[in-house]
């Protein structure tokens, strides 16, 4: 049954994005806010806003019982979790289902299975999706050499009981694999009391690519192309693009098919993203994980497909099937998104909450801004520091880069430090322009020099 009143269990730009999508579908909206977000843009635009509790997320946005109680008591028949917070916690769809509220997302059991890395890997393997080549347990130095020779160097030796980088050694040849075995095993014994190791191929310069998926929950899954999110700092994405211009077409087709096969194998429902590592030297991709939610960077896929993914999410949760078939999804041009954070790049990206005193975004053809900010908005210190996503669409990558440079130049933000200048430095850097980047490029190449030229 189509949703009539949607509860928005999130904040910031995505709450506003969801309210707008619902309004376009003539659906009423109720936005849950914490005490710190009483005056939020999403709450003002919605038909109603409800204060959940104190600013601390654990007592507001992260309390599933509080949220479902509010949804039920405000007469909502659908709930959108956005991203982050409770979006991938199975308890939220379970509570929704107990109270007759349609959850805008996958089945709780699917969320649980995909959230478990080992289960997700097994599901990917069963669906024929490529995984990083690796070994079973390795018991001796001789085994390590033999497995290393088979997998191909460089390889990573990892503690089976491990985590947090301890008991991890990179080996570039057979001798290093033998020596590395002794070292990693000793470290693993010291750290975890268990010297068992396993090995996997190490990709020194990988790109992060991911496929946008949408499933009907009955085995039919569409893809909306891939995104390249290789500009990262400490595993946080700063810039996302669609498509991945570095990937040849035949590989791209295999990537899409792998992602669709995996999602179809679990009758995936609603929006999701399959993430992969792309080894450019070897021209291979390996499965990482599935994110069972709408993602921050979904707008770049919308820009190249002309498709509103959040509206489609709401329709599917209301019981409608997919509104199109794969042949209808036509991808064109190139889109880039910059995540603008209120962070001080001169102070190790220190989050800098405070009041925005000037907010004049750029306008023009092919420019989109997803943001909940305006002049006078207070950025509270309790949540993430993202103030907006600047998105451009051009006829090709070079055109999109040029548009983004102009859009950044035309963007005036005052009151708090932001990462806008860093984004300018990235997208005008020769490595980015020539598309010779990888997931550690920002930290290894650009950031060490950043700020020195200006000084």
């Amino acid at each position, binding site marked *: 049954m189509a949703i009539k009143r949607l509860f928005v269990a999130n904040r910031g730009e995505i709450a506003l994005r969801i309210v707008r999508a619902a309004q376009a579908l003539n659906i009423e909206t109720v936005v849950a806010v914490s005490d710190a977000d009483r005056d939020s843009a999403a709450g003002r635009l919605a038909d*109603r806003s409800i*204060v959940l509790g104190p600013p601390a997320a654990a007592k507001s946005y992260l309390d599933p019982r509080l949220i479902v109680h509010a949804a039920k008591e405000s007469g909502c028949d659908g709930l959108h979790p956005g991203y982050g917070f409770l979006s991938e916690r199975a308890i939220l769809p379970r509570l929704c289902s107990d109270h007759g509220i349609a959850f805008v997302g996958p089945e709780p059991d699917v969320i649980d299975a995909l959230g478990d890395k080992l289960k997700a890997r097994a599901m990917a393997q069963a669906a024929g999706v490529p995984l990083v080549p690796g070994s079973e347990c390795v018991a001796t130095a001789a085994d390590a050499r033999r497995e290393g020779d088979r997998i191909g160097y460089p390889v990573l030796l990892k503690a089976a009981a491990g985590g947090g980088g301890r008991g991890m050694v990179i080996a570039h040849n057979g001798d290093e694999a033998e020596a590395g075995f002794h070292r990693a095993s000793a470290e693993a014994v010291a750290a975890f009391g268990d010297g068992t190791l396993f090995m996997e191929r190490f990709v020194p310069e990988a790109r992060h690519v991911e496929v946008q998926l949408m499933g009907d929950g009955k085995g039919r899954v569409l893809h909306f192309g891939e995104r390249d999110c290789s500009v990262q700092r400490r595993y946080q994405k700063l810039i996302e693009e669609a498509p991945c211009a570095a990937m040849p077409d035949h590989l791209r087709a295999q990537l899409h098919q792998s992602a669709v096969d995996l999602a179809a194998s679990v009758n995936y429902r609603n929006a999701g993203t399959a993430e992969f590592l792309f080894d450019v030297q070897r021209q291979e991709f390996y499965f990482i994980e599935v994110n069972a939610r709408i993602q921050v960077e979904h707008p770049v896929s919308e820009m190249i497909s002309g498709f509103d993914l959040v509206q489609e999410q709401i329709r599917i949760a209301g019981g409608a099937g997919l509104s199109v078939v794969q042949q209808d999804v036509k991808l064109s041009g190139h889109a880039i998104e910059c995540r603008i954070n209120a962070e001080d790049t001169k102070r190790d990206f220190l989050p800098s909450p405070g009041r925005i005193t000037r907010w004049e975004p750029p306008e023009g053809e092919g420019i989109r801004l997803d943001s909940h900010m305006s002049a006078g908005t207070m950025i509270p210190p309790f949540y993430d520091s993202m103030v907006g996503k600047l998105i451009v669409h051009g006829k090709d990558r070079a055109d999109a880069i040029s548009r983004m440079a102009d859009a950044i130049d035309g963007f005036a933000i005052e009151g708090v430090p932001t990462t806008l200048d860093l984004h300018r430095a990235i997208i005008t850097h020769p490595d980015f322009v020539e598309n010779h980047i990888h997931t550690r490029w920002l930290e290894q190449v650009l950031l060490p020099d950043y700020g020195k030229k200006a000084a």
Partner: protein
Amino acid sequence: MVEPGFPDALKLLLEEFSRSELCELHVRRGDFELYLSTDVARGRPQAAPRGVSAASVAAPLGHPAEAQGSAIEPVPAAVPDRTAADLPAEAIIITAPNLGTFYRAPKPGAANYVEVGGRIAEGDELCLIEVMKLFTALRAGVSGTIHAVLVEDGAMVDGGQPLFAVVAD
């Protein structure tokens, strides 16, 4: 030197302190020093006394505590004849710690915990706040007389919504 954003940071700190269970906070940074205390006996004036209970003593009525823009159905909030003007200046407003359904009695048919004009002592139960069948009693953080009950029985209240006006002893 006053840093940019300093007044906002101070405001946030004050808000956080007043919401927290902390009794004292002492901040020193450079030549700036700030001391906050909820202890009236220390001679530093405080807007309202505080207890250790869940009842938070918050802003006077008229502060924008109600949810905004309730086009769907009005939030059952302040009783119409009880406006800020009716309340004595010394009235203390007890607010909901979080969202939930407000119940004046321990169970249907039972007597209300408190009535207007009734006396309360610090620690007394005032009402129940229900979240998904979990009932939490709200206790008074102050002794005094109930001057007004600001919400209808059975209504959903927002976090921070005023529930009772109390004239303290």
